[in-house]
Structure formats: C-alpha cells, structure tokens
C-alpha cells in the first residue's frame, strides 16, 4: 500500500497546473464558451504536444502508462479550472474502447492520431429511455454481407457535435436489455444517414443527439469481434467515471476555496461573513465533504490499478461516484448559498463550477444509480 505520487505523476500534475495557470483564467474560458466550438483547438494541440493525450494509454500502445491514478491527477487539475476541451470523450472513452476492443490494426490506425491530437471522437452510448443501463441498447446493427447497417437514436453524446468520427454502441444480437450481442462500430461523422443535432450542455460542454438512419459501414468497422463489447464498455465507462469524478474533486475544492475566500472579504453587519460561526461550521462541513470525496475517488482510482477482481473494481467506482454525488449537492449548494445573490449570476466562476459538478453528478450514473450498483455487487 502506497499513497505517494510517482515522479511522473508529480510532473504531470505540475504540467497541468502550469497550463491552467497560464492559459485558463476565467475570462479566457468565457471567451471559449462563447466561441463556435466551445473549446480551443490550439489548446487541444498543446495537450498533444505536452503528451497529455497519451496519459490514458498503455506504454505498449505508445501511451504514458494509462493508470487510473495518472488520469486522476490530471483530471483533478483540469477540474479546478473547468477546462472545456473534450479530453474524456475523445481520449478516455473512445480511446479506451479502441484500446480495449480494437484489433492491432485498428489500434495502429487510430491511437497515434488520438495521441497526436489529430482526431476528435465521440462515443454514442445512451438512448432515449436507457438511463444509465449500458446493456439497454435498442440501436440495431444488421449484417448485410460485408456491410453492416446501423439504425437507431442516440442521446447525450458527449463531444458529438465536433467529433470527426463516432463510436456507436449497437446491438448485433440479443434482446434490448441483454449484455450479450453488443458491439461498437466506428462511423464517419459525415456518413450518409447520420443526423447530428448538436447542442451545449448546462456546463458548457458540447453534446449531440444523433440519429442513425440505416447508416452503412463495413463489417471491418466493428471494434474487435461483434457482440462482445459489453464488458469493455462497462470497464471504459467506469474509468471515465473515475476521470470525471476526479475532475469534480478538483472543482469542489475550488468551490470550497472560493467560498472561504469570499467569506473573508464580504462584509455584512460590519464584519466579514466568515466570522459568523454558523457559516464557519457549514464551511467546515464543506471541507469534510471535499475530503471524503477526494479520499473515496482516490480509493477507486487505486482499486482500478490494483490486482482486485472486476466486481471489486466496479464496486469501488460506484462507491466513489455515489459518495461524490452527495458531496456535489452539499458543497455546490452551500457554495452558492454562502455567496448569496452574486453566487447565482453568470458573472461568477462559482456558478460555473456549480453547473459543471451538477452535470457530473448525472454523468455515467447518478448518486442513486451508483448506490444500488454498489449494493448489488
């Protein structure tokens, strides 16, 4: 058992901290939000140059090492500054699926382009009514000779509007709730029959609802063997869950820090509001929530990297996301409440942190979902 960072992790942390300090103040971020893409392609290229896009990948695939703790270190710092670039959709989820499921040829073809910053990807998982159940897939993949025809509707596709290529989770066999028969296909975002309806989420991140209307792909577009994708999908989504959870840990820390600072400067009744004991104890409660969230997310990342079995890993991730969810409600709401009116304006970074962590509470399964998943494993 060991709780210290490796030298590489320490360097990674320093590197991300330097980037957000130099490139991601609140005003710069507001400009990005207002831009067409909603994030900066220059930043993305910089991520590639700095080697960050290699972080989720194994060394044998040309990556940094790919541990969950590496991801955690990086995401936490990105979370503090609410970085908008689609690192999780492209590198963690899509990259992760290619890494887990892809043939050697597919990996050789795609992974270097991801790590080089040349490829934006999105993974179409959820469907209307599927909620957080990864096995609930109605989108069909029908084989027709060497072709496969994809039909169905996907929602909440992160980075869906800007991705060059899409990974589509579709059912090549089995009934709607079955784990068997699920496949992942690589589809060109501009392919005939792909209808993207792009929008921005409340946290400023881009997403899309995408209809696949008899979209034709080659059978070679399937990542690995057809019908066998469920386990990898669950594993990759668990890893993405730890990534956004780590991001939230950073964001919650920011919320706490900004609230404490504000309470020291905001005067009411002739004194800083931070001198009111009722508010002090509530900030202490926020601190406790932040520390518990950090501890359990760290636990989950460490478990993913450990020799534990699949169920134990899944259980650790659900424990973390569930506990984090409670911290998100508590710390987020208290940060706004203690800021008072100014806290609910779009002018203040606190409101944006609050929106991002609230979105993360839902992403990849909300508190209640993960509490039950924990109990069921």
């Amino acid at each position, binding site marked *: 058992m060991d709780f210290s960072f490796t030298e590489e992790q320490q360097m990674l942390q320093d590197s991300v901290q330097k980037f957000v300090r130099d490139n991601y103040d609140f005003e710069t971020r507001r400009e990005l939000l207002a831009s067409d893409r909603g994030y900066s392609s220059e930043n993305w290229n910089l991520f590639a140059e700095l080697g960050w896009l290699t972080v989720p990948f194994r060394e044998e695939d040309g990556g940094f090492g790919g541990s969950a703790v590496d991801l955690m270190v990086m995401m936490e710092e990105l979370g503090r500054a609410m970085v908008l670039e689609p690192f999780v959709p492209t590198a963690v989820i899509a990259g992760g699926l290619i890494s887990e499921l892809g043939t050697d040829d597919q990996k050789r073809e795609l992974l270097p382009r991801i790590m080089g910053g040349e490829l934006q990807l999105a993974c179409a998982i959820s469907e209307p009514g599927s909620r957080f159940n990864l096995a609930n897939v109605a989108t069909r993949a029908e084989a027709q000779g060497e072709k496969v025809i994809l039909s169905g509707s996907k929602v909440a596709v992160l980075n869906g509007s800007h991705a060059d290529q899409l990974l589509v989770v579709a059912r090549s066999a089995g009934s709607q709730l079955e784990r068997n028969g699920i496949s992942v296909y690589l589809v060109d975002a501009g392919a005939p029959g792909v209808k993207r309806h792009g929008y921005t989420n409340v946290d400023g991140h881009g997403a899309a609802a995408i209809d696949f209307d008899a979209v034709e792909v080659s059978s070679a577009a399937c990542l690995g063997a057809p019908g066998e994708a469920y386990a990898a999908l669950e594993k990759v989504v668990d890893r993405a869950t730890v990534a956004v959870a780590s991001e939230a840990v950073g964001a919650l820390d920011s919320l706490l820090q900004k609230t404490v600072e504000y309470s020291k400067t905001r*005067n009411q009744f002739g004194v800083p509001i931070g001198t009111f004991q009722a508010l002090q104890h509530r900030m202490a409660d926020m601190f406790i929530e932040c520390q518990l969230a950090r501890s359990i997310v760290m636990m989950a990342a460490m478990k993913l990297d450990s020799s534990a079995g699949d169920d134990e890993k899944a259980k650790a991730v659900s424990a973390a996301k569930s506990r984090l969810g409670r911290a998100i409600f508590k710390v987020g*709401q208290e940060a706004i409440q203690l800021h008072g009116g100014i806290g609910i304006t779009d002018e203040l970074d606190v409101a944006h942190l609050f929106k991002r962590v609230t979105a993360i509470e839902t992403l990849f399964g909300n508190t209640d979902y993960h509490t039950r998943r924990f109990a069921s494993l």
Partner: protein
Amino acid sequence: MNADFTKEELAFQHEVRNFLESEFPADIRDKVDRNIRLSKEDIVRWQKILNRQGWMAPNWPEEYGGTGWTPTQKYIFNQEMGRIGAPEPVAFGVKMVAPVILAYGSEAQKQRFLPDILESNVWWCQGYSEPNAGSDLASLKTTAVRDGDHYVVNGTKTWNTLGQYADWIFCLVRTDNTAKKQEGISFLLIDMASPGIKVNPIVLMDGSPEVNEVVFDNVRVPIENLIGEENKGWTYAKVLLTHERTNIARVPYTKRRVNELKSAAASRADGSGGSLADDPSFASKVAELEIDLLALEYAELRTLAAVTVGKAPGPESSILKIVGTEVAQKADELFLEVADYDALPFVPEQFEAGFTGAALGDGYLASTALDYFNHRKVSIYGGSNEIQKNIICKAVLGL
C-alpha cells in the same frame, strides 16, 4: 378544530374553480403546462381578468378593492390558483408596495397609485438590495438628498426582478447619513422614466433575463413621492415584511410541482424495463417530500388561524420561508433525478414562445437543471434563510 370545509367554503371553492377553468386563458395555461416563459402581455392580460372578477388584491382592505375574504377563503383561492397553474399577480405592486401605501401613504398617494396597481396599468419593481447590502439590508448606501421640492437620488440597486418591464420602482434610500443605519432610511417611489435611471440586466446562471441592476445618477424625485415621514422608511418596510407573509410558503406552487414530478416519474423509464415511479427508493423520496409539504401546509394554516383570531403572524412565520424554499428546492433535486441526461441540455430559447427548433429530450424535463439552478435564489432572496434563522433565535427562542 375541524379540517372539513364548511358548506360556504365548499361553495366558494366551487366558484373559484369554475372561474379559473373558464377564465384562465387557454393559451397562457398551455404555456404554463409546457413551461414556456410568460410575456409581460400574458401576465398583464391575466391580471386584468382577475381584476374584472374583483380578485386582484385579496390582501387589500375592501374599500380599496380587496375581497374581504376569510383566511380560509384566501387559502382556498391560492390552492385553486396553484392547482390549475394560474400565476399569482406579480407581487411588487399588489403585495409589496400597495400595503405600504395603504398603511403609511397619504390619501392623495392612495388615490394616485392604487387604482393603477389594481388595473395592472403600472408595473412596479423593488429597489431594496444593493451590491454591498444583501442580508444586511439596512447598510444601504443609495442617497436621496433634498433639493427644493425634489430629492436627488444617487446609487445602485440590485437583484431588481423584472425591472425591465417596470414603470415605477419603490426604493429604500438613505436620507440621513448621521443617524444609526436603520434610522436614516426613507421609502421613496420613483418613476422609472425619470432621467438618470439606467437598467442593466444581470445574467443569471440559468441564462434567464430576470434580474437587473438599476443605477440612479442624479435622479430628481418630487418630494410628494415620499411615503410617510422622512427617515421612517425602515420601519415601514420591516412592519410590512413581518405582516405580509401570505403564501410565503408557496405550498400550492410546490404541490403542483410535486404532481408534475410524480407524473413525470410515472412515464419515465428506469432503464431496466420498468418505470421510475415504481422504484421503491425513489417513491420513498417523493413520499417524504409530499409529507414535508403537508407539514408545511398545516404550519401555514396554523399561522393563518392565529391571524384570524387577531394575533400577528409573528416571527414564527420565518419557518414558512425556510421550509417553503427547502421543500421547493428538494423538488428540483428530484426532478434532476427523474430527468437524468435530459436535464443537461442548455437551450433556454426552447422555453420562449415561438421556439421552432427540435425539442431536446423529454420536453418538460429539459428545463430541470435550469430550474434547479435558478431556484437556488429562493433560499437567498426575501431575507435569506440564515437571516430567518437569526430571527427565530432572537425573537422566538430569546437567544
């Protein structure tokens, strides 16, 4: 003690319900049902209908246009309005400035201002808060300096709700800088068309165009627009804040929200072949919310009953503010749970009349995150919940 309505009360309930079913305009009702933002015209049109019926100002004395209803009748009226989703009249005129004018204004002021409020000819807004005077309202700095038969007003008011529509603003202004902070404040009515007034919109985190900053730069206000005595404004505002707590708990509104929540959950897939409403742990959370709401409703009824027998509602009504906002915010949280990914898209224009883009997700649910964000305000405004607790500690518990 008796929970049953009397025959007269039942007849009144019937009357109100019939009126609302036939007179609440279908197009406005449809907007409410679809969670489309109402326009100023919608609101004014509906208020004029209410006024034609004589029901615009149940809280006023009958001689000025009030209804003369018993507290139970007022309760029934609010219940029925909430049931159908009919909006209450905008509070700033009828519920906030009017009671002050009624209690402390001159007869001339009553004649000049009250009819236009009743008839919705004039839209009022509130000028209390300032950037550095939030919970500590009495530390306000906007000054009104006497210059002949005018006051010259300078300063900045904030959290001004719907000020973009307003014709008049009622303000607390400082008329004596040398007195204790509560004692140098006056209550002034100001025409928003006066030269020197600028309204700057404040964008909230849900993107809603709801609140403003109002800047006064040497605005000249005739002295006849002063309510009551100079430097007594704090007392006027405070007495009214304590007494005018009708429907502060907003039970009918939250009841409607909870009903919407239950029907949304009933038609919402749980992802595993069932409906969310059948999920026992979700059902328990909804039940707790309904139970809280019931407790709140009876706490409010007890307060109303105390008023009936002549007692002032008193600081206990701070409970209604605290619990009313907490319950409403809890409903927002449960909506988030119902909506899952459909809560997330930020497309505020889809809630404006005439939006023609493709709807995202389950129509009604697509506003849930925005509602959750927007409603964080309710525990902050109107005397933050922390201030309400201070009031309970001091005035009720003697701490």
